[in-house]
């Protein structure tokens, strides 16, 4: 089976690298056209965003209460909607939405910290360090997602299988219908392509500074 054929295979669980990219693009297109059923399905896909915000907030010691987190969720949904016309369908929807969620949360936490509303509750925890790490993740996930989005869908998919699904090369080979050695070569070629795009993005940022 060729890789392209495998990509067009049956739809799998949301969040897995097997999630069908063609379906994601079709869903986004239908939502942008205002189709009600598509909107409901898209709202269901946004559950991942609610989970991400909740998980990250808890990992930071829950500085935001539930109703505050719901405000951040609304902001994130609004930003996703505003950016949705730029979704190219190369990256999986979940991966594409992730940096938007992390950035919106870190902005909300920065605003809270600046107001003095996020106080250290534990001597061993420094909110400024936590916040800096969160902002680093936001920047890194933005760069990586944009670089993944520039890869061919097949290459991006192999990278996601390896790191999102933690698939071995044997498993990737089975999913793609190729020997493990071929899966490994494809993966390392995808990382090479990713390096090139990340380096280009880094150079552009350097020029802009």
């Amino acid at each position, binding site marked *: 089976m060729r890789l392209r054929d495998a990509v067009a295979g049956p739809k799998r669980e949301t*969040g897995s690298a097997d999630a069908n990219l063609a379906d994601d693009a079709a869903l986004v297109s239908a939502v942008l056209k*205002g189709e009600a059923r598509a*909107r*409901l399905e*898209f*709202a*269901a896909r*946004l*559950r*991942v965003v*609610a*989970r*991400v*915000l*909740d*998980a*990250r907030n808890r990992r930071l*010691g*829950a500085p935001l*209460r*539930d*109703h505050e*987190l*719901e*405000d951040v*969720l*609304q*902001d994130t*949904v*609004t930003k*996703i*909607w*505003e950016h949705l016309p730029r979704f190219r369908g190369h990256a999986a929807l*979940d*991966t594409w939405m*992730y940096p938007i969620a992390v950035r919106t949360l870190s902005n909300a936490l920065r605003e809270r910290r600046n107001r003095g509303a996020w*106080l250290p*509750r534990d001597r061993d925890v420094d909110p400024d360090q936590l916040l800096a790490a969160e902002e680093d*993740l936001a920047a*890194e*996930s933005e*760069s*990586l*997602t944009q670089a993944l989005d520039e890869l061919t869908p097949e290459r991006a998919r192999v*990278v*996601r299988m*390896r*790191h*999102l*699904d933690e698939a071995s090369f044997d498993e990737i080979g089975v999913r793609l219908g190729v020997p493990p050695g071929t899966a*490994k*070569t494809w993966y*390392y*070629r995808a*990382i*090479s392509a*990713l*390096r090139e795009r*990340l*380096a280009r993005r880094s150079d552009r940022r350097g020029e802009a500074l």
Partner: protein
Amino acid sequence: MNSRRPSAHDAAHESALEELWASEGGARTPAVAQRLSACARCAELWDQLQAAEASAARVLGELRHDMAPRSSGEGAPGEARLDAMLQRAMAGQKSRPRVWPRWLAAAGIALAVGLGLRWAREPDPLGSDPELGATLRLLAPAEATDARDRFRFEAPDDGGWFVVEVFDTQGAPLLRSGRLAASPWSPQPAEIARIPQHFRWQVTAYDASGNFESRAELRVEP
């Protein structure tokens, strides 16, 4: 200039290095080491390849961890209202404004002061938030000396459910009940032991579909 790494890097070097990266699976084998010691630019590119792989592992690993559902099976805050949030975004409505116009803020302060004076004259205010908790009334514990084994509240029985949360005085979450069909909530002894002398607790009411209905809080403070 590094004399041990004469750099004659060109496109042929680059494709040979990438071929080496793919065939050796990113490992620093003798063949790779030889290439890197022969060309400074190849060594730099190798570092970039490793950094790109590390970045993919880090970001996608975080995403994998973050999108796992809660172990309790409970939904994340706001999960039940995502369609409403999406429709609000589609209609071009932002989140509720956090910065009020000055006249509205002044009116709000005046109203709050008026309500505060009224409550001060009433014998049983119990700290319920009049805006958010109109249908909820928190009963006990209300004083620092009250027992903490039963958190009692009054709420209409409309087929919905409730969540009780306990925070310290700085707002750090301490305890959270599961879904409750009715009052009271009885925390476990180990949980009760974690409640400090002064704390704040709140009840959030959801309708049968999981939509937020109201919230009330009570401060057990000096």
